[in-house]
């Protein structure tokens, strides 16, 4: 996992719960915590931090991950406005993930292991997004999409008829406007 993810998590946690909370989570997770955005760190660090946060806040891990995705989006929008400005909707933004955003991510963070989504946008009011990753972070994708919807002033509903966490081969995210 690229250090940028840990940096974003640190900012989100510190903003919402204070800097001491981040110290506590690092200690509880037993991770080193010296993360730089361009470095690469074990995925286990993230899951240990999520588990620690789940314990500390009394919320299920997936809800923490979803919250993280949603809270990280405004930070990303501030840091990389050019990915957001050309669009006016969550749907249009999401459709640029494979072709534009992830290639750019690979340029900025060599070695970044980003997931590939497949899209079915054949109906106007529903965007179907397939997700597969050994990290099984579909909740992070959900959170990021919710964050993007806030950015574009939209309210969206995400259903997951298939999910790797329920032993499906892949996750399917169905996104519609509320």
């Amino acid at each position: 996992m690229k250090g940028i993810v840990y940096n974003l998590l640190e900012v989100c946690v510190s903003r919402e719960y204070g800097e001491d909370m981040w110290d506590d989570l690092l200690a509880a997770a037993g991770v080193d915590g010296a993360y730089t955005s361009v470095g690469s760190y074990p995925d286990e660090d993230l899951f240990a931090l999520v588990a620690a946060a789940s314990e500390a806040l009394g919320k299920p891990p997936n809800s923490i991950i979803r919250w993280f995705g949603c809270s990280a989006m405004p930070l990303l929008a501030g840091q990389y406005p050019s990915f957001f400005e050309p669009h006016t909707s969550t749907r249009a933004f999401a459709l640029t993930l494979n072709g534009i955003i992830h290639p750019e991510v690979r340029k900025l963070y060599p070695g970044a292991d980003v997931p590939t989504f497949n899209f079915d946008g054949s109906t106007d009011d529903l965007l179907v997004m397939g997700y597969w990753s050994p990290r099984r972070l579909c909740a992070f994708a959900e959170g990021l999409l919710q964050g993007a919807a806030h950015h574009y002033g939209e309210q969206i509903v995400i259903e997951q008829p298939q999910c790797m966490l329920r032993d499906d081969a892949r996750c399917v995210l169905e996104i519609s406007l509320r």
Partner: protein
Amino acid sequence: MTEPFEDVGSAEVVRLRRRLDRERRARQEAERISEQATRELYERQQELALMVAVARAANDSADVPDALSRAIGHVCEYMKWPVGHVYLADAAVGLRPTTIWHIDDSECFETFRRVTEATPLATGEGLGGRVLATGRPVWLPDVTVEANFPRARLAADIAVRGGFGFPILVGAEVVGVMEFFTDSVQPADARLLELMAKIGTELGRVIERDRARASEQRLNRELAGRATELARSNTELEQFASIASHDLQEPLRKVRTFTERVLANEAGQLSEQGRDYLGRANASAARMQTLIQDLLTFSRTATRERSFAAVDLGRLTADVLEDLEAAVQRSKATVVVGALPTIDADELQMRQLMQNLLTNALKFRREGRSPEVSIDGIVSDGTAEIRVRDNGIGFDPQYGDRIFRVFERLHGRSRYDGTGIGLALCRKIVERHGGTVRADGVPDVGSTFTVAIPVSQGLPTPR
């Protein structure tokens, strides 16, 4: 020394110290990554500069040795290694050493150079031989401890230690091997070998281009040689035909003169059979005379100097038809002459061409059917196309080419007289004018002869 944070509670100090430590380590990590990225970027730039230099050497070198020599220099400069050398593949020995080198200190590596240039390598032998055998780059950290490095055995102090070689490839074929050496032990560098493999492919293109050029030159030389040979042989043939025909005329004329005199003056003293024999001999001699005259005309067509002028084919055709008036009347033929252009041509030969085509059209008529002949012409794209059509016996389309050959006759002489030279002559005349002639026929329907000749032969425009 005053401790920082001394007025803050000790637990808070520990916490802040920890944060500071984390930040410091994160910064150091970021710096390390950044330095590494900068270094890698620099290395990639150097690689790219090397590739560009080699590509330039490959493109604008005068010849293969020049390109290889420049490429070796670039690689040595990039590697900061003192010695580079090239072998070229040789079917007989495997690898033949060349005298193409880059040597930084010629005195120091003199023994190595001498031994190398005296030692061809078999497939699999030594560094180069292994590259030749596998088609892959080979790295030797220390050649002096290598069992398979003959040059180390041949001379005690060759002054080189680390070395590597890579193939110059044309497709999958190893056409040469480049080898580089330095005076210290060097660990293998996979990335470098990969870069060198690319250079080997680039240099292979130089050799490929050189081969193509050599093969083209050889073909051109062969072609030119054959053309000269053909021209010589044609000239000889024409001279032979001309001389033979000319020299045959005189005795033949005598044969005819004397047989005619005997027939005129001594006929009474001959038996009927004798008179018949002599008559036949005379007729044969007459036919032979026609044949020789036709042959003479045919051979002169080629040897005659070009004397082209503007020829009005309409007027010329009218003249020819006037000459053929008796034959037209005898066969009750209808001849329709359409518009015909004026072209640059040899007038005498055009007259011959038209006369032969029209004579044929009248001669090869169907029994019980009056000949209908039409002549017309069009000009397009600077070419005059003249068509002579008849409703005669026609011919099987498969003979469309054969009828233009000398002495080729599709019909027996008993039915249609002639020497079999007329159409061959037509073709020769047309070709001499830079044109083509084609025959299309349908048996028992008729024939069409189409002559295409350039309107202009590049004559100066008359004032």
